[in-house]
């Protein structure tokens, strides 16, 4: 970790109380003048200084965080129009996944090949955060180029799960999820190609949301698989996810896949979910292929999943049994489409325009320099997927592999369409198991890939999905996530049903699930 923004001022008890507040609570205190952004930011920097040695969520800290916070405080203190135009989240700190370009901080995507690279521009989502007055705390760890489910494929070391430091924080966005769940940041940004927002949220007890494909700009997000990638929020509450999506979402002319529609307020959709009767008559489809024993699910995961559904049913929601037989082929299709697109996207790392350059002993042609650079700069998982993708796209195999995978994609879309003809949202566990031990799946790529079973279908079909905490598994005391999915463009439904369930569960637990996490200091 580099940067020197942690400072030395102890904030004492007031500071440690500030880090436990969620973003909407911080926003209210900031707006009421009860606390300054400098105080809130300093409290989080202190927390990072205290626990990130154990967690390792951050790759880089923003040395200008307190300056940014002071500028927001000044704008608020000035009153009048300057204060009135502040966005609801102005002054609230946020962590940013290192896959997103930031003009003032290195952006490595967890790869050695981009070590120290500072982009000449901001990703659109980062520019929108800054314009809304959020305070970037730093950049978070991730699997190299977002390839992985455990963050163990980062070139910069493992991130540890705050619930049990010997376990994975999920991946690829393990850094963002660990930062939020260890109270180092109230908000974070992630990216989700096959579950990289939702699965880390599930195994750390936080909330992660993948918007509809095209709902959030990807300009300045270092591309993994362009037909699957989507940027989204990582938070501790459903309302916070809605507030953050309201800031980063919406049309961007710089992204040709950006949907040019107007979107409703997702924060409002979340607030609607907490009102009486919000789920009465809601039809929740329970996907038969992803909710039963014998499908690789840990019993404690299924138990909490079905208990959550029962809570919603007691509030008047209707559970509908739906079948999606093509989901059985989703992982196979995904691990052809993703490597194929990644092998093409990663061709830009050619040692010419940015990043590492390694010249072979005695010199070489530009091609030999490229090959030596990519050998030295890419990790094992990236090499594995680039070679696999090159194979899947090569003449003679294209139809059998990439072409067939694209047909499976159609079948999966058809399954979603047929399911959504009889229900409003779909529900599955967010991940088949709780957080596994660091190192336990590194030697078996297929075992790691199977972990994405429940999250991949949404990416293949472009539909939105949210994961929120459903409780702790009885067998290991670790967080379990429940996932809801909605038809494309119907993201608001996820915030409504998510906030409704969250309210019921928090009442049952007597407070947020993360209040039960072990103390780190």
């Amino acid at each position, binding site marked *: 970790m580099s940067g020197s923004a942690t400072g030395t001022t102890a904030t004492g008890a007031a500071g440690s109380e500030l880090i436990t507040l969620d973003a909407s609570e911080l926003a209210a205190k900031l707006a009421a003048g009860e606390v300054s952004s400098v105080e809130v930011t300093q409290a989080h920097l202190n927390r990072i200084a205290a626990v990130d040695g154990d967690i390792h969520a951050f790759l880089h800290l923003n040395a200008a965080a307190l300056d940014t916070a002071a500028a927001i405080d000044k704008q608020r203190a000035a009153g009048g129009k300057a204060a009135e135009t502040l966005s609801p989240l102005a002054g609230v700190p946020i962590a940013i996944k290192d896959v997103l370009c930031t003009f003032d901080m290195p952006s490595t995507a967890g790869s050695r090949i981009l070590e120290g690279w500072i982009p000449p521009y901001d990703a659109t989502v980062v520019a929108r955060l800054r314009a809304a007055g959020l305070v970037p705390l730093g950049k978070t760890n991730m699997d190299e180029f977002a390839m992985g489910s455990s963050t163990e494929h980062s070139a910069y070391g493992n991130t540890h799960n705050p619930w049990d430091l010997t376990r994975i924080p999920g991946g690829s966005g393990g850094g963002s999820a660990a930062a939020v769940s260890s109270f180092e940041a109230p908000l974070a940004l992630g990216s989700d190609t096959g579950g990289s927002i939702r699965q880390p949220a599930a195994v750390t007890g936080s909330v992660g949301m993948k918007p509809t*494909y095209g709902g959030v700009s990807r300009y300045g997000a270092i591309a993994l698989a362009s037909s699957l990638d989507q940027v989204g929020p990582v938070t501790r509450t459903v309302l916070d996810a809605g507030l953050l999506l309201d800031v980063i979402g919406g049309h961007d002319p710089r992204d040709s896949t950006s949907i040019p529609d107007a979107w409703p307020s997702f924060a409002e959709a979340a607030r609607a979910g907490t009102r009486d009767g919000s789920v009465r008559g809601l039809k929740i489809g329970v996907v038969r292929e992803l909710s039963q024993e014998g499908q690789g699910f840990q019993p404690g995961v299924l138990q909490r999943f079905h208990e959550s559904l029962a809570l919603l049913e007691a509030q008047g929601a209707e559970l509908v049994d739906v079948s999606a037989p093509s989901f059985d082929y989703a992982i*196979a299709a995904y*691990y052809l489409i993703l490597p194929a697109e990644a092998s093409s996207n990663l061709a830009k790392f050619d040692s010419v325009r940015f990043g590492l350059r390694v010249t072979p002993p005695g*010199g070489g*042609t530009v091609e030999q320099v490229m090959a030596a650079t*990519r050998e030295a700069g890419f990790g094992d998982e990236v090499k*594995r997927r680039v070679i*696999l993708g090159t194979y899947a796209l090569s003449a003679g195999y294209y139809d059998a592999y990439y072409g067939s995978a*694209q047909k499976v994609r159609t079948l999966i879309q058809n399954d979603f369409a047929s399911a959504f003809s009889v229900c409003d949202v779909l529900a599955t566990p967010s991940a088949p198991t709780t957080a596994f031990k660091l190192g336990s799946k590194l030697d078996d790529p297929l075992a790691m890939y199977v972990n994405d079973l429940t999250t991949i279908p949404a990416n293949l079909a472009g539909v939105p999905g949210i994961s929120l905490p459903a409780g702790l598994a009885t067998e290991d005391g670790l967080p379990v996530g429940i996932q809801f999915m909605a038809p494309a463009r119907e993201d608001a439904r996820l915030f409504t049903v998510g906030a409704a369930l969250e309210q019921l569960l928090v009442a049952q637990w007597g407070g947020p699930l993360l209040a039960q996490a072990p103390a780190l200091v």
Partner: protein
Amino acid sequence: MSEITPEVVTHLAHLARIALTDEEIARLTGELATIVDSVAKVSEVATPDVEATSHPIPLGTVMRADVPGQTLTADQALSGAPERDGDRFRVSAILGEEQ
């Protein structure tokens, strides 16, 4: 459908411009064979009557108005270059000696 041999992996590595070591080629040969066997199940249901989907949300070709605007300066564009020569990216020889 396991036709992955060390020669195939060597060829793929050349196409992908990655100078894999012999040890990596040996390991990847085994791993790729296992992965390809597993993902080949897509052909079970990908029958000729099924259309392919390339993008999940269909959008037409997106065009913008052709108006001049602010772009990166040469210095900004070259700010991450491993090597530069004036306002250009500098690379080593494109052709080998025998070419």
